[in-house]
């Protein structure tokens, strides 16, 4: 038996390339944090809940600053969906406020969140 020879740099790059070719789709799935065929319904529900949260926040009386903790969203308890509303002065346009809503679900390593922002003025255009 002969002891194995070290591979050349070219061969090592070739192995890395082949491995990347095989594993790249899984990397992409990891990067979007979802497997579309299984989790698209959860995403759809979360996005609708996000819009509802935003519309609710916009129909509140005008405030310059407001922040709520993450609270469970009724109707989506099976998903474990929690959402929050933040209202903060816009960093560049002092007359406007930024309304930001976020929803979050999932357990720690696979936590997903969606956020939506809306620029609001005190007076209507």
């Amino acid at each position: 038996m002969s002891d194995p020879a070290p591979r050349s740099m070219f061969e090592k790059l070739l192995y890395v390339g082949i491995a990347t070719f095989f594993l790249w789709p899984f990397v992409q799935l990891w990067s979007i944090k979802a497997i579309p065929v299984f989790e698209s319904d959860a995403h759809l529900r979360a996005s609708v809940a996000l819009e509802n949260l935003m519309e609710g926040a916009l129909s509140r009386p005008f405030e310059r600053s407001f922040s709520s903790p993450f609270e469970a969203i009724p109707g989506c308890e099976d998903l474990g969906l929690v959402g929050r509303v933040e209202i903060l002065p816009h960093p560049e346009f002092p007359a406007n406020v930024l309304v930001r809503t976020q929803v979050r679900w999932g357990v720690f390593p696979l936590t997903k969140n969606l956020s939506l922002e809306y620029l609001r003025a005190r007076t209507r255009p």
Partner: protein
Amino acid sequence: MNMTMTMKTSRTGITLWEIALFTVFLAVAGGASVFFFFLNSDDMKRAQQKFAWVQNINDMLDEVSNEIANSAQFEHPFNGSSRECFFRTAADTGALVPSVLEEGFVFADGSLTYVARNAAATTGMKRLGRFANPLVTNCRDGKFTRVSPGRLEISFKADSPDGSVTSREFIRVIQLRNQ
């Protein structure tokens, strides 16, 4: 001496980590083929149809919300909840159309319909955007609730056409922008 060392390190055989790499690729390929068979299965087709149905209703609700949110004046329900809602729209010129001409959405006969009414009658419209009337069929408990002066909530429960999903609840909150 150096010559014999070089000869001795010639490439023969297959190393352990090459076997491991081969096994990993084999596992990935096997898993992928099983997964593709699963993607072709009836279960998956049914799930896709269900999702398409839900997404279609949500797209339709987007259109309805857009129409209601941008109505020039929201007339009914003024408070409480109702199975129908009516509002005045703005004309393309920006003028308000006469108050006898109103548009609205009605939950009736297990469906949601886009209607127009005037002093004489209420008639169904042909379509709302790309959605033909009735906008939703097989829906129950549909109502429009005026939660607060600037906020309307639409909620209903719907069954999918093939009967695989029952009582899926759809809720939309709308900020009435012009109130």
